[in-house]
Structure formats: structure tokens, C-alpha cells
């Protein structure tokens, strides 16, 4: 069972500011972390390997520092790591990201499953998984709460708004992993250190991937943000209740009572 896990490095907080004067993003925190949901995907891969054997490859597209997210994946137990990094990838939307990932997966050739997180904490679009599946012409099983492998098929429990479904397909397939599926292991510090000392992160640029340059990076992104602006949501005037907790509590409950809200 050879598995490729797609992981993304995301900003540590989502508090990204916008400077209206210069028109640029201000990232209060420059630190990047491994997308929390992708840890569930890595954990799922590790558990499948324990049962069925095989090789786990973690792959990420991002700037050089995204290598840290891949080291963390190696520290958790992935066997190999590939970073797609090239200035030309910059500015990619979800379609162009999944296009670059699809080229890399065609180069990897041998895999039975691709696992993605359900969504990234910064983009939260949940689009890259399904788009990648389409570009590789694979069946997609999204929002998996459970994965069960039989000899030549895979089943998932798919989460829906009002319940779940059991879906079945053959290999190879792409699965997106819900947070509920598992509790990701926390790699011990020494295995992360080892991942830096003894394991390699392979770096592939546009030149290594081939493909259609028109579909890469900003140029290959059909969606564009036309305008980014601050919007302070306002309603009417606010009435502040002030004083000791008991006093304000009494006032608020009285207001609710008068408005027939109790």
C-alpha cells in the first residue's frame, strides 16, 4: 500500500493584516506550521502502513520554508518527502496548485492512495483534493471519517451534514481526511531532529515537472482577487451595560424580559 500525502504549510495564525497604503499583506506572525488537518491525513497513512505495509511519501508545494512542514511529516514517520518549490509556482490558486501536484504525482508513478486533509486552515476551500483527483482521473472519496482497506477495494465513511454514507471504490483513489478520523501523533523531538539530520527533502522545480507552463503559478490561476479591503461590520448604536456583574446581569435579564426573549 503506497501512499502519497499532500500537505501544506499554513501561517501560524490567521490574523493577516492588510496595509491599505502599500496594498500589501502584513503577516503578524511569519511562522509557518503544518496544516492541522493534514496531520490527520499523515496519521491515517501511518496507521494504514502499520496494517498493510508500504511506503509513505509526503509532498508539498510551497516556498523553501515549507520544507519544515515536510520535516515534521518525516518526524511523524513518513518515509520520503518532496517539496515543489520554484518562484514560478508563486501566486497559484487551487486549480494551479492541484495542476502542479498532479504533475508531481505523475512523476512518482507508483501509489495506491493519495491522502489530503479535508481543508487547509488558511484557504479552507477543500478544493485541492477533488481537483487533483480529476486531473489524475482518479475516484475521489471526500470527508472521510474512517478508511477500511480490503484486498482490492477501499471503503470510507463519508461525513455529511445530516449523517454519513459508506462509499466504496478501487485503487488508486484519492481520499480527503476529516479531523474526526484520528488523533495525530506528536513526533518526539529526537525524531524531528533526525528528520533534519538524516533524511532528505527532495526539491523539484518547474523544470523537473515538465507540463504546461501556462498552467503554473499566477499565470495559470483562473481566479484573481480584484480587490481586498477592510470591512468593519456595523449595525446600529450599542448600549453598554456597566457596573458589577450582578447589576449588569439584572439589567440584561430585564431587557430580555421586556423584549419577550425569556
Amino acid at each position, binding site marked *: 500500500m503506497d501512499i502519497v500525502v499532500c500537505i501544506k504549510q499554513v*501561517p501560524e495564525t*490567521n*490574523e*493577516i*493584516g*492588510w496595509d491599505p497604503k502599500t496594498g500589501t*499583506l502584513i503577516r503578524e506572525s511569519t511562522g509557518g506550521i503544518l496544516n492541522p488537518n493534514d496531520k490527520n491525513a499523515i496519521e491515517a497513512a501511518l496507521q494504514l502502513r502499520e496494517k498493510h505495509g508500504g511506503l509513505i511519501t509526503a509532498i508539498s508545494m510551497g516556498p523553501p520554508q515549507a520544507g519544515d512542514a515536510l520535516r515534521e511529516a518525516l518526524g511523524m514517520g513518513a518515509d520520503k518527502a518532496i517539496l515543489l518549490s520554484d518562484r514560478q509556482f508563486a501566486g497559484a*490558486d*487551487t*486549480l494551479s496548485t492541484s495542476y502542479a501536484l498532479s504533475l508531481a504525482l505523475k512523476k512518482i508513478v507508483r501509489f495506491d492512495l493519495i491522502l489530503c486533509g479535508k*481543508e487547509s486552515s*488558511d484557504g*479552507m*476551500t*477543500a*478544493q*485541492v*483534493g477533488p*481537483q487533483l483527483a*480529476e486531473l489524475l482521473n482518479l*475516484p*475521489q*472519496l*471526500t*470527508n472521510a471519517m474512517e478508511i477500511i482497506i480490503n484486498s482490492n477495494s477501499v*471503503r470510507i465513511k463519508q*461525513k*455529511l*451534514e*445530516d*449523517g454519513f*454514507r*459508506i*462509499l466504496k*471504490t478501487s485503487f488508486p483513489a484519492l481520499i480527503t481526511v476529516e479531523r474526526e478520523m484520528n488523533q495525530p501523533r506528536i513526533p518526539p523531538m529526537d525524531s524531528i531532529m533526525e528528520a533534519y539530520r538524516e533524511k532528505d527533502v527532495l526539491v523539484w522545480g518547474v523544470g523537473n515537472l515538465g507540463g*504546461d507552463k*501556462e498552467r503554473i503559478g499566477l499565470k495559470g490561476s*483562473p*481566479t*484573481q*482577487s*480584484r480587490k*481586498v479591503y*477592510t*470591512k468593519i*461590520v456595523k*449595525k446600529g448604536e*450599542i*448600549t*453598554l451595560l456597566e457596573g458589577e*456583574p*450582578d447589576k*449588569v*446581569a*439584572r439589567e*440584561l*435579564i430585564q431587557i*430580555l424580559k421586556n423584549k419577550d*426573549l*425569556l
Partner: protein
Amino acid sequence: MSTDNLEEYNGLCVFIEQRDGNPARVSLELLDEGRTLADKLGADVTAILIGENVSGIAQELIYYGADRVIIADDPIAKDYRTEVYTDIIVEQVLKEKPEILLIGATCIGRDLAPRLSARLNTGCTADCTELDIDTEMRLIIAIKPFFGRNLMADIVCPFHRPQMVTVRPGVMELKAQDRGRKGELIYIDINLKEADTKVKVLETVRSTSDAVSLEEADKVVAAGMGVDNQEGFEMLKELADLLGAQIGTTSLPVDAGWISEDKKIGQTGKTIRPRLYIGCGVSGAIQHSAGMINSELIVAINTNPKADIFNFADYGIIGDVSKIVPALIKELKSIKDLT
């Protein structure tokens, strides 16, 4: 790799999601909104309805704003399956060439839309909370919160067609049907064989909870990061019970694992319109307010007088939830004792 002959594309399409022959509310919301947008463009609205034994709802879709309903009614489409629905919709899109395709951002819509966009090699903007039209350029403007606290982005797809957008359920208002509207029903054949499908649905289980869902709740007590532990949550539950309210939350307590994801309110959670919303330790980030700003009465309890939520609350208490909430509980109990 942009789309050739952009001007050949015309009209607005809405994918109609249905379960057991009942249209998803968000699909009706999009027909309604789509009608308004299409009128600005002078374009037609086409609904795409797929399933088994679903023809019965086609007429209703016209009442909600469709000019035409394309109906694919076939046993193979009984359950939603990515591959089957993608094949059907792609065939129609290539034939009809709509300039805009709208899909509800439900579990199914979020599975389908990106698959379609990759096959059609076009852009899809996910999880929008508002839509607008640039009539001159014939562009749909997909509006959504953008990462930071108060940031919004207008996203466009200038050179690819159709322009695809998924929209959160509940953010658009659903107006009453117009039973005088007339439209065309178009039945199409599905030329897919079950033997060729790769994915099978073995079982579907609907959860049968009779608890009032968060979306329908009359009153909501929302927990933010100011309620920073399990104990705090227990206290909020007590307050909610006394008020007859449901508990909701921001995304951070969900990420922390304190509360389940189906309680999340906001751009990537539920949209609510209760008569009363009480935010406890909620900062009021735009991703959160996107899902609750239409609450009738908004009360905010927060230690920070500069918190964004005080910009749109009707009543504000600048104070610590761990002190205010117990006082509210005490007060509510004493009233109950009196009656």
C-alpha cells in the same frame, strides 16, 4: 489556457442539490439570487436538476426564478456520486455554454464544484458570502472574508468560462415563490452505465436527532476563546438551558477540540438568524460575523472594549465571562423561582 470565445458563453446556471426529491434550501436561495444577477446581465437562468424521481420539483424551481430546468431523471443518479454528476453537468455545460455556474457550498457542493472546475479548466471561488455583477465586463464578483480579521476580497474569473462560485447556505435571503412565473422543462437522457461507475454507495445513514438545529434556533449562546476551558463550556450550557438557547461557537474552540464542528457559526460554519445571539468571549472576526450578523438582537460579553463585536452588538457588557455568566445564571434562576 484561457477559454476561447468568451462571448459565446451566456446565461447563468444553478445546480439543484436534492435529497429524496426535496431541493436543498441553498439551491433555492441561489435561484433567487441568480435571478437578480441574471436580470442585471439580461440573461437566462437555467436550473440543473439531477436524481431519480425528481421531476416533481421542476415546476417549483421555475417559481423560484428559473427560466429553464434541465432534468436528468435516472436510476443511476439516485444517490449523489461525483463521477456521475460531473459527467452529466459537464455535458450540459459544454452544450449550453453558461457564463456563470452557481453551486451551494454544502458537503455535496464542495465535493462536486472543484471536480467540475478542474474538468472544465475554469476557476471556482469557494465559500462566498455575497455575490455581485460587473455588468460591463459580464463578470460575477465572488465576495468572501479573506484571512485576516476585517478583510474581504472580491474575486473574479476573467478569462475562463463558466465562472464558478460556491455559496454558503443561509447567507442569501429566500424570497417567496412567484407562482405566476412560466418556464421550460427540458428532459435529457443519461448515457452512463452502472457497470462503468467506479464508486458505489453501500449505505446512507441519516442522523435522527430531534434537537433543534443551530440554524433553526430561536436563541443562541456563542462561545468564543474567552471561554477558555471545558469548565467554562459547562457554565455556558447551563446559561443556554435556562434561556432555552442552543450553543454555538467560533472556529477556535472547534480547533481546540472543546466542541464539535457542527456548532461552528460563520463563513465556514453555520449561518444563523436567531432572535437573540449572546456572544461570550467572541471577538467578532468577519469570518464569524458572516454567519450571525442577521441575528435580531446581539449581546456581547467581552473584556476588551475594542473588540470588533462591539461594532455590531446591540447591547455590550465589557467584562469577564467567568464573572458575568454566573451572575446571569443566578439572576435567571431567581426569576424562575419566583414564577
